[in-house]
């Protein structure tokens, strides 16, 4: 494996509405911030890859507008995934592994504010048997939460504690949408209350990857990607054991998570109950600092929230606050698809 690191990360301040901004206007400042941090120009970048969704934007080919913000002339080597930006990072990491390029710019963005994101996400479901029923994202997460409670894996008080801990951690995160504890609130769909659900909002994030000595030249303390893998599960909820996440476990195994303990984990768990599932799959105990950024419960810009987990984990390594961190991203109903990466600081780089 070719040594590759996250050398810069930037994100917007995530907010409920960005009516005054187009996607490209929302994105451009974060692109400039990661380029400025490394001193690179758009034309220095070997490969660019982004993640976004036409369904959120409400128009076909929505990602083409973002190219205006990248400054793609002279033409650039570029690709796009209709997935969370974490998978765009994965594609860029593969491109660096081929040896064709040494640097990559990765970005993603999502504006949930123009529509009802709970309704929009129902369009991800099997269009013949499930989609016509319009079960929304909260209802599906509530099914999973109920299964966890029934199995004795958690209870409503424990879920409330996850919500409290996450929002309290976000008090120090200037980009978070919910900063500081919020009331548990009423049930949205039992057993999930307002406090168990992520805020709906708009946001963007960008990351720069670099290989080997290029990374060392661009960043005083690169966050080396020691392993990265992603796996998908069956779509039908009826054939899945919702209290477990075998795809997360498999991705983590292949990414090398269990070879040595991590000190930090940024988990993409939009609902409190999903943190319970992920902690179990990833064998995380109380010695691990989980979601010091506040996680998706503090800011969940759809399509960017997974990339932000990778960025937040990397930023802690950049700042010297972590030696070995786990980052996780998810997609699909009830954690159907999961990506896991292990990031390390230079001092932990012992061959």
């Amino acid at each position, binding site marked *: 494996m070719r040594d590759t690191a996250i050398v810069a990360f930037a994100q917007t301040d995530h907010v409920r509405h960005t009516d005054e901004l187009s996607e490209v206007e929302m994105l451009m400042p974060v692109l400039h911030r990661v380029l400025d941090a490394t001193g690179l120009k758009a034309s220095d970048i070997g490969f660019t890859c982004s993640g976004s969704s036409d369904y959120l934007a409400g128009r076909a080919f929505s990602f083409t507008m973002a190219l205006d913000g990248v400054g793609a002339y002279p033409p650039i080597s570029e*690709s796009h995934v209709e997935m969370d930006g974490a998978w765009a990072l994965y594609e860029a990491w593969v491109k660096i592994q081929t040896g064709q390029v040494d640097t990559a710019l990765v970005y993603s963005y999502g504006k949930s504010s123009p529509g009802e994101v709970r309704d929009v996400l129902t369009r991800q479901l099997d269009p013949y048997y499930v989609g016509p029923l319009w079960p929304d994202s909260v209802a599906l997460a509530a099914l999973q939460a109920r299964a966890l409670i029934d199995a004795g894996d958690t209870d409503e008080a424990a879920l409330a504690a996850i919500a409290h801990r996450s929002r309290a951690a976000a008090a120090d995160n200037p980009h978070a949408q919910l900063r500081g504890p919020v009331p548990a609130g009423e049930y949205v769909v039992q057993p999930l209350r307002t406090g168990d659900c992520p805020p709906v909002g708009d946001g963007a994030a960008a990351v720069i990857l670099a290989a080997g000595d290029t990374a060392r030249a661009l960043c005083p303390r690169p966050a080396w990607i020691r392993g990265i893998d992603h796996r998908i599960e069956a779509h039908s909820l009826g054939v899945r054991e919702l209290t477990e996440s075998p795809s997360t476990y498999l991705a983590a195994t292949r990414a090398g998570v269990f070879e040595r303990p991590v000190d930090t984990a940024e988990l993409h768990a939009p609902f409190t109950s999903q943190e319970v599932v992920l902690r179990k799959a990833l064998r995380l105990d109380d010695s691990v600092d989980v979601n010091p950024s506040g996680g998706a419960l503090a800011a969940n810009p759809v399509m960017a929230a997974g990339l932000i987990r990778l960025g937040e984990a990397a930023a802690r390594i950049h700042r010297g606050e972590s030696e070995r961190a786990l980052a996780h991203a998810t997609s699909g109903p009830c954690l159907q698809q999961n990506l896991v990466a292990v990031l390390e600081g230079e001092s932990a780089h012992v061959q």
Partner: protein
Amino acid sequence: MSSEPVAVVGVGQTKHVSARRDVSIAGLVREAAVRALEDAALTWADIDAVVIGKAPDFFEGLMMPELYLADALGAVGKPMLRVHTAGSVGGSTALVAANLVSARVHRTVLTLAFEKQSESNAMWGLSLPIPFQQPLLAGAGGFFAPHVRAYMRRTGAPDTVGSLVAYKDRRNALKNPYAHIHDPDITLEKVRSAPMLWDPIRYSETCPSSDGACAMILTDRAGAGRSPHPPAWVHGGAMRSEPTLFAGKDFVSPRAGRDCAADVYRQAGISDPRREIDAVEMYVPFSWYEPMWLENLGFADEGEGWKLTESGVTELDGDLPVNPSGGVLSTNPIGASGMIRFAEAALQVRGRAGEHQVVGARKALGHAYGGGAQFFSMWLVGAEPPSS
């Protein structure tokens, strides 16, 4: 660091038609995937990862359909990536899959692209009016017709050239059992008398709207050694993008297309594409794009592309056959169209193109483009493994 050579050992397509009412979306993609596995004599268990591509999700009314398709494509427990780069996506998807093998992340990858356009109306799916953004002017034809007109004005090409392309591609399609449009009674006169849609583009010179899927199995050198049929080897592959609109953009011959081709030729060691490449599968959704891309891809000097078409060079038995499969003009499940170009190029160098085989094809180019002539993806495949 040397990268792993990538081989195409399996190709599968559905019979492309205007509406596959007999299958679900999952059924459609599985049909192509199973055929690719059969071609490679592999099973689902041999596949390490799945890379899927398609154009806008609005075409089927399904957001991120790969989530729902994981089961049908045997992806459960495996990595699955979903690429979307507009019309070039079928090509980009194949390149993302090829990189997984090239980087030695995986050994054998299933890549697939599809569109089931009968689920909606593609022209209006591409025409969403949004305040403050440039709409695509009632379908792709409305967007591209002015650029065709600019090409004709720039080169002085006679206005009969477009119909020659359509007449050739529709006749080639008759030799391809998977092509959507099969019109055995086609005549040049019929092509020329079709109604004008977007002047100078006639109805007969436009691509159809198709339901279809295309799949390929990509593998490493060891995998290629086990292939029951000759593999196609990837000698070069690249993507290039530029913005939709900007001052100085050359819509007739976009720089992103020229740069992309130059990158592929450099990787493949091609110095004279016209002489060294035996067959081209080029993304020609409107007839005139054949002469335009012949120039953009370096097969003809600027202003000379239409002369190759007019003199019969691009015919199936010509010196440089273009779209022996019948091309996008005969088959257009949008998200799959780019992959069909890549796959047909592979079939040519594998000697497995059947009736539309170009005799002795050793090197072939697959080409796709999308958006406002701004996203390009290409690969060059050969009958022999790459030398370096």
